[in-house]
């Protein structure tokens, strides 16, 4: 059997940063990913990464405050402090690894403005920041010769009595199923955007890690907090970075007005994402739209700046909607972008109760978008997510190595785990009746979620979505996988991913119905105000017993900043 001290599931920024940390310390570490590392969705991050550098006159407390406020006071302030305090050093680490970064006149790292922050502290590489960092991180993985299970799909966490001992995974090329043993397992499997349609997320963002952890007994936290990004292309949902507005682009409606004047007179286009998305939907609903969209106008930035700093969105707009942003405004609308919620962890990637006992699954760690630390609370600030991945990727590796040092391997029967997994895959393959095709069921789910859990939500709408999703969980058992073969059976993988997405969708809807207030991205027409008295707390969901979902509340952590009204 394959065996490691630390096994990292996922090779995006969080996963690679974790694996790198472990490899540098000489641990026996491996990484497993359903796509080659550089294909991970971190590559899509365009705008940048935040850090308050003291030698630039910035102060991490200010970054922390902006993050707390951005989170609509749902973020845990102790975690936010850790992230913002360590940001500067981590940014410098990235530069030392080889990330190129745009510079100022003196050859030092340069910044751009980003939404929800009073100061320009977003460091960037043109508008390919995620790609530039991801590829450099992979360079380091190659340098340290980390073992990577490329194109392996993890299907189940191996657990016994609440302790995780590794994973069952399918080698896609051969279709063979294997168990991989690990003393500590880190989930870094990214987001779940495909639960909605349209979405800025890649086709691989299917919430696998959240579902795997949830099924194994770990709690999911604040799942209702799904971020809508204000500037996505109609149809495909592909993103045009906030970097555009950071560089000074305008949002205008069909009457040519910069409508943000009316919603956020100070920060204008650079207000928090939830605020801007709501403003756009309001404009669209009031009829100030062009075909269901408003316009992003970059023309006044000038061709030179656009080609230097926004070259990728120039390319995307040209390729996908045929608009040259140097010459014309481009139609955009809000689209699903990021999951603030996820697997509940502390600042070391593990799920502990305040007394330091494992509350989730022992030996299981999580980092990146799949985790909920929680630093983003009700609304993530742009460019805080890349930061989250590298800070908590590294920290979870440190904690995982400690755990692996203090604990042996979990004993389990390889045959039982592998056999069980094969049997459930075979059951899917054997479906030949009148079930739905995988893609059809996915689209039904994603459309229902978009309708019921969009930018504005109501009890009724969310309940409808929840009922629909529960119905689809039933239909899922009969889903038809047309490819019956073994080698590179993507059809089967999609079916397994759909199973994960359905679990996530259900949790999102349950969380949404549960939270009876409007906070951050969770905007309810039937409870329009934020309710600090009753809802200054996280919602944790556990799967089971049976078909049920068990809820738990955990108070948020406040260190320095008392909740206040949020104005931009």
């Amino acid at each position: 059997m394959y065996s490691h001290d630390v096994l990292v599931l996922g090779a995006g920024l969080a996963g690679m940063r974790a694996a790198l940390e472990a490899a540098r310390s000489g641990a026996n570490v491996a990484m497993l990913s359903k796509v080659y590392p550089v294909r991970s969705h971190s590559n899509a991050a365009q705008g940048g990464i935040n850090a308050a550098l003291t030698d630039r006159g910035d102060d991490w407390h200010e970054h922390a405050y902006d993050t707390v406020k951005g989170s609509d006071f749902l973020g845990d302030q102790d975690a936010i402090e850790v992230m913002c305090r360590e940001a500067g050093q981590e940014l410098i680490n990235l530069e030392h690894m080889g990330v190129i970064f745009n510079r100022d006149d003196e050859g030092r790292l340069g910044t751009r403005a980003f939404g929800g922050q009073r100061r320009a502290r977003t460091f960037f590489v043109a508008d390919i920041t995620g790609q530039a960092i991801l590829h450099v991180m992979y360079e380091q993985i190659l340098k340290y010769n980390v073992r990577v299970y490329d194109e392996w799909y993890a299907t189940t966490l191996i657990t016994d009595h609440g302790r995780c001992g590794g994973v069952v995974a399918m080698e896609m090329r051969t279709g063979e199923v294997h168990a991989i043993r690990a003393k500590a397992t880190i989930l870094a499997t990214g987001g779940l955007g495909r639960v909605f349609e349209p979405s800025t997320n890649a086709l691989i963002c299917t919430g696998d890690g959240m579902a795997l952890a949830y099924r194994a007994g770990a709690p999911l936290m604040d799942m209702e907090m799904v971020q809508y990004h204000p500037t996505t292309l109609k149809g495909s949902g592909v993103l045009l970075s906030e970097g555009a507005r950071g560089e000074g682009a305008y949002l205008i409606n069909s009457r040519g007005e910069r409508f943000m004047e009316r919603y956020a007179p100070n920060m204008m286009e650079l207000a928090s994402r939830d605020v801007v998305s709501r403003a756009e939907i309001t404009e669209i609903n009031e009829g100030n739209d062009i075909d269901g969209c408003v316009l992003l106008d970059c023309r006044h930035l000038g061709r030179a700046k656009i080609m230097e700093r926004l070259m990728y969105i120039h390319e995307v707009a040209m390729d996908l909607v045929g608009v040259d942003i140097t010459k014309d405004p481009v139609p955009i609308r809000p689209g699903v972008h990021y999951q603030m919620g996820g697997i509940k962890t502390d600042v070391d990637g593990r799920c502990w109760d305040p007394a330091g006992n494992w509350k989730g699954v022992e030996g299981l760690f999580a980092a990146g978008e799949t985790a909920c630390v929680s630093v983003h609370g009700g609304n993530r600030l742009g460019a805080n997510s890349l930061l989250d991945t590298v800070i908590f990727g590294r920290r979870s590796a440190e904690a995982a190595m400690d755990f692996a040092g203090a604990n042996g391997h979990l004993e389990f029967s390889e045959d039982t785990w592998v056999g069980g997994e094969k049997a459930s895959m075979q059951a899917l393959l054997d479906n030949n009746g009148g079930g739905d095709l995988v893609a059809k069921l996915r689209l039904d789910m994603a459309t229902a979620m978009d309708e019921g859990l969009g930018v504005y939500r109501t009890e009724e709408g969310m309940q409808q979505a929840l009922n629909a999703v529960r119905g689809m969980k039933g239909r899922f058992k009969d889903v038809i996988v047309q490819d019956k073969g073994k080698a590179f059976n993507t059809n089967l993988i999609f079916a397994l991913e759909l199973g994960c997405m359905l679990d996530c969708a259900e949790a999102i809807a349950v969380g949404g119905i549960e939270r009876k207030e409007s906070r951050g991205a969770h905007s309810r027409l039937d409870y329009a105000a934020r309710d600090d008295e009753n809802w200054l707390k996280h919602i944790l969901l556990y799967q089971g017993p049976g078909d049920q979902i068990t809820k738990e509340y955990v108070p948020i952590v406040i260190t320095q900043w008392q909740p206040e009204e949020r104005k931009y």
Partner: protein
Amino acid sequence: MQAKVNVRRFNPDEERPKSYTQQFDVEVEEHFTVLDTLIKVREEIDGSLALRCSCRAAICGSCAMRVNGHAVLACKARVSQHLSDDGQVTVEPAGNQPVIKDLVVDLEPFWDKLRAVEPYLQPAMPEPEAEYLAPNEVMLHLVDVMGCIMCGACVSDCTVLEVDPNFLGPAALAKAYRFVADTRDEEDTKRLGIYNAYGGIWDCTRCGECVQACPKGVAPMDRIMALREKAVESGTPPGSYEGAQYGYRHSVAFEEIITHKGRLEETQLVVKTLGMFNLPKLLGMAPMALSAMFRRKMPPPITRAAPGVGQVRRLANRIRWNRLSKVE
């Protein structure tokens, strides 16, 4: 709009696997990319069609394949622009790599070659406390190469890889360039030594296919030429590999002759490149020389300097000077 999509298929699970072409009739919209079209086939007609794709926005590098014989990113290519008059388009797996299934090729050799160029920054140690300083122009210049998404479209269409699988290939060498051009990297000499070897920068024939195929404007051939220039400039010895020696000497000789004579003397170029005493190689050139002579194309062996050679020399000096003073 109706498209007839001819997809090259291959299923290794079959007893005697053989590749074949299957035609799918698909209703496509004007804005559909080739990828949208294939996804539609996979979702609605035949779920067993295997291809890699993820981002749908030309950034993850998954979906390089051949469309009508040339490598493209499927998510960047509008299908309507590739349809023939009778509405057909042909989709095949990327070239120069073994096929695993349908449009999925084996990328292991691709990553192995990447590993071979030591693809990680090797800066001066110890690390400074803050960032390494670097001019913004250098970083902006590097953005173009960092734009490489490792899709392998260039590798698919590289004419040298077709005949010599040992060639490191355009993607790995473009990556190599990223480090040589990065002012923070200290190991240029070692690197150029590696890239000078068999399978390295001197094996490219400058066919330009990679430049054509690259969806991100990385222009690998230009990077390879820039590496050659650096190797020559820095006087990095070409090592024991003959191909590199010839390539290296070819460019040195080329420059020497031009600045000396103001025009190219091909005979001298051959002699200088192969070496005056390299009789076997020189004799090997004889048939070509003879046939050139028959067709009266044999260049005269020795010529006088061209008129205005001074001007040529000034130009050459200017180029050299520019090269040296270029942001390093």
